[in-house]
């Protein structure tokens, strides 16, 4: 009885010190060689010749190792694009389109608490629409089998981008325009971040959570 797993591992190890191939792949390839060897023996091929045929069938171990690893890398890249970047870009675009449509429709957008020095500028109708945007992103990501942090990242992507923009602008101003930077009040920055990043993020998260609940209840109903 041959230990085909050992045979495969050995083949890979000879081609590279650390072969990095998944154990499940090793098991699958070992199964293939086992079936091939058994078939040859059943056809009356002597053991030594059968082993030689198996070695030919295995082919170039380094080529196999590279092929398997490359296929895995392609998978993770494709998965990242499908599960993360495409839904995230859709979510971001949708959030901006909704904002543009609201502005175009002259919906009264700004809510500024009267009398305050550093006003909290809230785009209430937009924020109210954001749960739908978050839910769409979550739906698209989960549809492509995304799980955990990926779903939240996709749902929160518009807020992440806005947060990034805030940081970028503040960094730029504080480095290149010290005069303006001196006039920026911390309370103003915090209120701006609250209105443009924190509250939108909460609204988007609500959408992600509601979509998740809907999906769960739908799968329970189907079961």
């Amino acid at each position, binding site marked *: 009885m041959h230990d085909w797993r050992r045979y495969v591992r050995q083949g890979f190890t000879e081609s590279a010190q650390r072969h990095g191939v998944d154990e499940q792949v090793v098991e699958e390839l070992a199964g293939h060689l086992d079936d091939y060897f058994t078939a040859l023996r059943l056809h009356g091929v002597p053991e030594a010749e059968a082993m030689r045929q198996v070695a030919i069938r295995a082919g170039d171990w380094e080529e196999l190792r590279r092929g398997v690893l490359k*296929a895995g890398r392609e998978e993770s890249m494709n998965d990242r694009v499908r599960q993360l970047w495409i839904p995230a870009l859709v979510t971001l675009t949708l959030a901006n389109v909704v904002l543009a449509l609201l502005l175009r429709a002259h919906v009264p957008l700004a809510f500024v608490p009267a009398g305050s020095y550093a006003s909290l500028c809230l785009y209430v109708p937009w924020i109210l629409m954001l749960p739908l945007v978050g839910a769409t992103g979550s739906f698209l990501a989960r549809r492509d089998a995304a799980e955990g942090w990926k779903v939240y990242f996709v749902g929160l992507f518009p807020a992440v981008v806005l947060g990034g923009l805030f940081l970028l602008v503040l960094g730029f101003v504080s480095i290149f325009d010290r005069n303006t930077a001196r006039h920026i009040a911390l309370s103003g920055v915090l209120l701006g971040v609250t209105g443009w990043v924190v509250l939108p993020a909460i609204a988007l998260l609500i959408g992600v959570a509601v979509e998740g609940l809907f999906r769960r209840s739908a799968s329970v109903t189907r079961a």
Partner: protein
Amino acid sequence: MIRTELKRGTAELAILSVLEQGPLHGYQIGRQIEERSGGALRYTLAALYPLLYRMEHRGWLKAEWETGVNGKRRRCYQLTAKGKKMLAPMRAEWADLFRALRRVAKVTHA
């Protein structure tokens, strides 16, 4: 004997075609292709498995571990709806290629 590079190009269509009949594991896929091609198409592990994994990642194939009556675990591949959809255009593409080659290189059936 068909050269390796040429065989590789045909492998996707060959794999999809043999899986059209039902789920098979890697060895069975290789054997079916070999039998149906009269021994002309014979793939090494290095040619077959990276391709199977790529096709699986593209969503053309779905694979599941199954335990046979002999207690051996094998990873069985089956066509997905997406994979089935790929078959017809791929067959048409190859038919076009063969027609074109016949015209250009005067390739004829044996």
